[in-house]
């Protein structure tokens, strides 16, 4: 198998150029999908027979929750690649994920609380799913604090990568907490082995929003990664060509 493509990924100028080229290809479809999903979710999807109009919270809560977990997976994978193959670009990718992941974990918690109050009668309960999601936010914040607390970039990369990898243990807990323990949180409606338990006109805006948020993450992450690569390579000759 030809591994040239993999080795080229380790090249900062190559990654900087590729990220710049790919960003609009993710950003514009993301914008279109999110705007369409917003319209379909708020105005076209019928109200739920039990939750009424309140179910429309799903169109921002579920995509944010999905991103919070998916971004952590991407961050930990990039951190592991950086740690194993000593690939600086991989550490830059991991570092670029953290703030985005933390922000969407925050959104998932806030929108969950705003959904919980009318449905459960309380904003917060120490439920396994909610607690694991809070732990995820703490992991993101810990990762960012650790990075900013170490001046030496190499040491910051390695230490934060170890923390990111250890934190992966929280991901299956988030995913399966509603099945393993008695949880007030509802079981998965879409991300499960069987067919989604939602009618198509409710499901389609959700799938569009999930894809739109995922593409948005890709676009934002690529822009952040370009900034991170530039900062790390600020003395390199290729950077001089870029900025001149």
């Amino acid at each position, binding site marked *: 198998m030809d591994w040239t493509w993999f080795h080229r990924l380790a090249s900062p100028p190559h990654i900087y150029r590729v990220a710049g080229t790919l960003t609009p290809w993710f950003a514009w479809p993301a914008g279109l999908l999110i705007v369409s999903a917003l319209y379909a979710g708020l105005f076209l999807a019928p109200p739920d027979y039990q939750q*009424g109009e309140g179910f429309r919270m799903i169109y921002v809560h579920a995509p944010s929750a999905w991103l919070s977990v998916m971004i952590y997976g991407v961050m930990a994978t990039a951190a592991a690649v950086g740690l194993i193959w000593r690939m600086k670009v991989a550490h830059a990718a991991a570092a670029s994920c953290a703030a985005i992941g933390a922000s969407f974990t925050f959104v998932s918690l806030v929108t969950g609380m705003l959904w919980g109050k009318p449905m459960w009668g309380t904003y917060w309960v120490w439920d396994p799913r909610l607690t694991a999601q809070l732990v995820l936010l703490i992991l993101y914040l810990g990762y960012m604090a650790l990075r900013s607390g170490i001046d030496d970039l190499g040491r910051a990369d390695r230490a934060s990568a170890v923390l990111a990898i250890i934190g992966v243990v929280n991901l299956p807990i988030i995913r399966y907490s509603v099945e393993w323990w008695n949880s007030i949180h509802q079981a998965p409606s879409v991300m499960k082995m069987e067919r989604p338990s939602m009618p198509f006109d409710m499901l389609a805006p959700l799938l569009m929003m999930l894809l739109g948020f995922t593409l948005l993450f890709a676009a934002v992450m690529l822009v952040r990664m370009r900034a991170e690569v530039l900062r790390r390579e600020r003395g390199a000759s290729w950077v001089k060509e*870029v900025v001149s």
Partner: protein
Amino acid sequence: MGGYAAFLWPAYAVTFAVVAWNIIAARRAHQQALVEARRRFSADADGDAP
């Protein structure tokens, strides 16, 4: 919104405020990195840098 407006609209507002922040912060970080790199190279050219 069937009595849920007080919960739904703040949730949508927070979500899209965070989406906007992500876009703006990422673009700003990239612009700042470009400015810093430019400043460094112009300082090098002036012979100020170590």
